[in-house]
């Protein structure tokens, strides 16, 4: 029996904007088992970051609100915890790495202080122990001159170094779950590879669970056990990594895979999915992918399909794989 670390069920996070409600996350269900790395992929704006921020309950200072669903972490319902209890979990049991390494560190404090802050808070180390631990963490993430870096300011470091600092900070209290929100997107290709190597190393060394958000399927192939594909605030397909690559079901997933350049392929022939993610204002009534789908049928325009198992653990939200009878009903 696999133990569940994180269970997001039917999560709905809406933003209340000036012109109506934006359903950034609309009924997302994702499970991360112990020791497992789950990839969450999807185009920009499909709600990946909002999902991860919802898990951490970090929607402060945004018009966002979790309106429905549940998030269970090691059997605890996170949405029912008080803010104080939640703070004991953040940075300690669940840590997060953000998409923006350049701006995620406070420009006016030294690296050491920013690392020690989280160490002192959760591990209750004294000043000297915290400093030692900080230096060790920086060494662990492969930062050269770790002893000097603690006395430097963020602007003295490159983007890759800053992301390493962020990873060190996230790993400092040995979290059970690491949420990495596109940890490499903002970095150069060579640095990306280094950071991924590092994350793989950190993953293999422990039984840590990782939720890895990305829109890079190459990263998924390298890192993940299971993949969740999101589109317009919903999960459209979920399967283990092999099934996704060898036997993708949802037309959107097929499109995504088609848009990954393969070796020897002419870049101009790259299959990108035509059209754009629907805006909240003109969200289709039926399947949200229908306007861009080459297989769209009548039923797709009328009713949103539900997420159903096609075989075993492979689930898909598409009328192509649903019961004919149900389709006739509509």
């Amino acid at each position, binding site marked *: 029996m696999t133990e569940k670390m994180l269970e997001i069920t039917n999560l709905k996070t809406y933003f209340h904007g000036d012109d109506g409600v934006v359903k950034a996350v609309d009924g997302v269900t994702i499970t991360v088992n112990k020791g497992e790395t789950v990839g969450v992929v999807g185009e920009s704006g499909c709600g990946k970051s909002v999902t991860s921020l919802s898990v951490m309950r*970090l929607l402060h200072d945004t018009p966002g609100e979790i309106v429905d669903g549940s998030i269970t972490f090691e059997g605890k319902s996170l949405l029912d915890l008080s803010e104080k209890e939640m703070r004991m979990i*953040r*940075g300690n049991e669940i840590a997060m790495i953000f998409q923006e390494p350049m701006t*995620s560190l406070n*420009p*006016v404090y030294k690296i050491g202080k920013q690392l020690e802050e989280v160490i002192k808070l959760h591990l209750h180390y004294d000043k000297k122990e915290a400093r030692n631990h900080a230096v060790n963490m920086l060494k662990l993430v492969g930062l050269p001159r770790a002893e000097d870096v603690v006395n430097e300011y963020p602007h003295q470091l490159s983007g890759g170094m800053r992301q390493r600092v962020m990873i060190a900070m996230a790993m400092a209290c040995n979290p059970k779950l690491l949420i990495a929100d596109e940890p490499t997107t903002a970095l150069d290709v060579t640095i990306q590879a280094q950071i991924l190597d590092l994350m793989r190393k950190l993953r293999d060394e422990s039984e840590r669970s990782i939720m890895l958000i990305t829109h890079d399927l190459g990263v998924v192939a390298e890192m993940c056990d299971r993949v969740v594909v999101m589109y317009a605030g919903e999960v459209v397909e979920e399967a283990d990594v092999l099934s996704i690559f060898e036997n993708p079901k949802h037309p959107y997933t097929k499109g995504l895979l088609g848009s990954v350049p393969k070796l020897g392929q002419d870049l101009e022939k790259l299959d990108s999915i035509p059209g754009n993610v629907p805006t909240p204002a003109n969200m289709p009534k039926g399947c949200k992918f229908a306007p861009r789908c080459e297989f769209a049928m009548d039923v797709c325009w009328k009713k949103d399909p539900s997420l159903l198992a096609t075989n075993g653990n492979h689930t898909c939200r598409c009328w192509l794989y649903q019961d004919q009878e149900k389709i006739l009903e509509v």
Partner: protein
Amino acid sequence: MLRYVIKRLIGIIPILFFVSIFIFLFVHLIPGDPARLVAGQDATLQDVEVVRQELGLNQPIHIQYFNFISGIFQGDVGSSIKTGRPVFDEIASRFMPTFWLTFWSMIWAVMVGLLIGVISATKRNKWQDYLGMFGAVSGISMPSFWMGLLLIQVFAVQLGWLPVGGLESWQSYILPSITLGSGVAAVVARFSRSSLMDILKDDYIRTGRAKGLNEHKVVWGHGLKNAMIPVVTMTGLQFGFLLGGSIVIETVFSWPGLGRLLIDSVAFRDYPVIQAEMLLFALEFILINLIVDLIYGFLNPQIRYD
């Protein structure tokens, strides 16, 4: 850092030199004749001429300027036309009351302004925010003479708790510094509110929360230091401005400060006093600018001094 400060201090000399030319010309452009004022209304034309000669005002203007500047280099800024006392003594005795009044006003104003600003920014669109900003708008729009008179009426005249005016004891500072500081507090409150509100949207604030820090540490620890950067400039300017002495407040509270000295000496066309006082204001502004720049560097490590 020390080299930077020395460089800046040396840089002050040419600036003051140019400023002094402007001040000198400006002061001599004020219509009116000090010789006539000293000699008195019923003095004969000859008497006035004699006085003018005594004061050196009959010389061509560039000679007068030269005398003024060489006086400064000899450490002698001349004597007041009105009282005959050395200008230095005139100003020195007035400087301290203005300085301390400004100092205490700024201290409370910045503290209260920041507190209101931070509370308003963190309780955005709640009653605390509305109350704070209502207070700030009132503080900015209330004319200081009116506020001063109101305070005197209530606390000095009716309740008799505090002196009506003048400078006798520390109690004398209370009403004028409330009056003087309220405008500053209001500006600081609004400035720090908007600055902090912007900062609180930054990514490193989210990082702080993701670490598990409480709101207090996030706002005061990570937000405020960043938000202070624009607030410091504004506060420095206000400080420099108030150090010149507020004419209105010093008049309302019969405060023996630089502001009243300035109107008195302008009324009397007391050229040496006006010139020295304006030069002092310029120097104060320049020094405060330097201090602001240094605080900037302390707040923002990306600024380097070289």
